[in-house]
């Protein structure tokens, strides 16, 4: 347990992404499996005996990847490749890439060719979420992932063990949900940056330890219903650039909702822990707000988003669009039109680690914040 600043363990992991993976490797000589967001069920990797760790390529600078993939590729994919090429992923033994778009599938091809000694698995997430066969296919994909991960760790697949991992992750998600509510009620103490540190570090830590650390947080701090922070709805792939949370705090913004792939969206749905764990995982995944690369009925997609925004009572919406992301950029104009029709202020930020300026980002957010101020 920690004494002193209860936020420190999380901040330490933000500062040193591999800290916990390294510890695991040194103490248990175990297998570290990296994965890319979104929607890779970490509990499956955990149950195999591996240490799952999320990789965020989006915010890395790119210097070597261009020799292998064209520059008109999103930062998430290019950054991941670059991390691999520059040796920054040496700690991982294997990689899981969720098939959410053409770029992730191509990354999988390139990874296999460029890193033949680091096994990778393309998790074939079904895209047609409203078709009933999607659930069955997802379940078989989860089973395949479990067998693959067990093949790496040398453990035998064991449904009981997976059920235990599922329970642990459900507990963690429940506390993260509570943390999000706490941010909403006490945003001046549970700032955006601190909240982010909990979510980001969760996918880089031993979940049991993370749970213990979270229990020590200031849950009893008073609510601040009078807060004059502007609550915004955030939608996008990842928090790219990472400086975004600090700027939001600085400008007096908090989160009405965080629909980023691995943000509050990823923990929002409470799953069941009894019954078949593969089925429970699939049901939870299918009940989660669909990631932009998936397909749902097109008008319902926009209306559903609008309803969620309204329900959140956000004063405005920020859409984080990774540059060169086809999946997100086709949705955006209709989302923006729907928001405009309801007079909900919105800001589209096209993000890329390669053409990013904190100063410019801040200017745009300042202007947006002023606009929200006028709305309030």
């Amino acid at each position: 347990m920690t004494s002193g600043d209860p936020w420190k363990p999380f901040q330490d992991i933000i500062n040193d992404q591999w800290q916990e993976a390294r510890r695991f490797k040194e103490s248990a000589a175990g297998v570290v499996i990296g994965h890319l967001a979104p929607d890779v069920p970490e509990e499956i990797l955990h149950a195999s005996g591996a240490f799952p760790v999320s990789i965020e390529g989006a915010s890395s600078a790119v210097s070597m990847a261009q020799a292998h993939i064209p520059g008109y590729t999103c930062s998430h994919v290019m950054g991941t490749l670059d991390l691999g090429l520059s040796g920054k992923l040496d700690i991982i033994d294997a990689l899981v890439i969720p098939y959410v778009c053409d770029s992730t599938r191509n990354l999988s091809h390139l990874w296999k060719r460029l890193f033949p000694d680091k096994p990778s698995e393309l998790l074939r997430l079904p895209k047609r979420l409203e078709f009933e066969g999607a659930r069955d296919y997802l379940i078989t994909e989860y089973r395949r992932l479990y067998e693959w991960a067990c093949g790496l760790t040398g453990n035998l697949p064991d449904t009981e063990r997976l059920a235990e991992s599922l329970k642990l992750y459900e507990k963690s998600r429940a506390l993260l949900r509570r943390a999000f509510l706490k941010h909403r009620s006490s945003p001046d103490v549970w700032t955006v940056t601190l909240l982010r540190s909990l979510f980001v570090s969760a996918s880089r830590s031993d979940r049991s330890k993370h749970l213990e650390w979270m229990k020590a947080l200031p849950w009893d701090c008073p609510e601040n219903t009078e807060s004059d922070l502007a609550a915004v709805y955030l939608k996008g792939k990842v928090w790219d650039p990472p400086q975004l949370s600090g700027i939001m705090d600085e400008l007096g913004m908090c989160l009405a909702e965080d629909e980023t792939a691995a943000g509050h969206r990823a923990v929002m749905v409470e799953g069941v822990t009894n019954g078949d764990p593969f089925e429970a995982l699939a049901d939870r995944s299918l009940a989660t707000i669909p990631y932009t690369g998936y397909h749902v009925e097109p008008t319902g997609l926009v209306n559903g988003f609008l309803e969620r925004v309204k329900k959140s009572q956000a004063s405005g919406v920020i859409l984080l669009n990774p540059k060169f992301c086809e999946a997100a950029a086709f949705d955006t104009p209709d989302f923006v039109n729907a928001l405009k029709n309801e007079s909900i202020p919105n800001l589209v930020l096209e993000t890329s680690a390669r053409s990013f300026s904190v100063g410019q980002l801040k200017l745009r957010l300042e202007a947006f914040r002023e606009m929200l101020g006028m709305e309030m």
Partner: protein
Amino acid sequence: MEPIKSLKQIKKVTTEYFTAAHMARQNNKKVVYCNVFTPVEMLYALDMFPVYPENHAAIVGARKMAAEVSAAAEGMGYSMDLCSYARCDLGSIKAGISPTWGLPKPDLILVSNCQCGTLTKWFEVLGRMYSAPMILIDVPHSDDGAADIEAEKYVRAQLVDLMGRLEEMTGRKLDEAMFKETIRLSGEASDLWTRMLELGMKRPAPITVFDQFIAMFPMVSQRGTQIAVDFYSGLIDELEERSAAGISAVKNEKYRLFWDNLPIWPELGRLSTFLGDRGAALVTSIYTWAWSKLAVSQDDPLTDWTKQYLYTFNLHFKSRVDNYVDLARNYQLDGFLYHSNRSCKWISQDVQEVRAAVTEITGIPGVIIEADQNDTRQYSVETLEKQIDNFLDMLRKG
């Protein structure tokens, strides 16, 4: 060189097709937007009319209208980084500018993602725009192309479901005889198309990939009809005659090249002349070969489509490289021209490694040129020509 006469018919075939498309509703046919890798034979058997927005976009590109209509799409909020087919289609609707008088409004949108994920998102926009129902045939990518029995079940179940939904929508039962006949006609057109492609193996080649791009329209838009069969029969007869008479597509053929990726539609004529003047014949390409594998059996077409979507059109890295190596041998290639196409991330993101792998195996060099299938603002044709010239120079020096 003496032009291929049969290609002159393309204009007539295209005009008749779009006229029929615009008349479809008046003729009590439901209009279905779709992509090539969908079972259009079912649509014909239910008297529906398939329309291909990609095809429309390609025509916009070939007529050099892309910059103007793309700008309209960008004005709607669609980023310039998005596939230019999508931007051309959406921009054409917005600006009301189209070489085909636009497209008729859809009653249904049908798409498969064994091609790219972009198409699904683009068609979702159309679905909202026209309030049309949409059906996705979701095809998982098996990464290395290994058999995925569960995916086969998943895809086949969607095809069964599709048939039921189409019947429900049209209020009629699928006409078995018509279904089989359409499948037969598709298979025949696909076989003829393949024979036409194989003629490029002759030395010198009687047809280039540029001609094949022009000849593609019936294969893409009229598969399953007698029109496509008649057109390709005539074309093959003419090519065989030309070949027997020693007429080659390129005068003094010196270099036999492969074209990777989609064409650069606005530059077809210019690049064809440029290469022809240098004795360089584009004898084969991945894009034209894609239409050669569309035949399915009449006995169990659903299973055949399932396997085609999962394993043939799903562009796995290894099978792509193997394919190029085979083509290099069969067509006696001297070099590969790889079009790194900003619009089509799906085909292009692997291109650097595909080139490396193919050269490792065959020793045949390749050059990567960065351009765009439609959007002339995204490249400079002079730079492309310079790159190609340097490459030919390198081939010449051996």
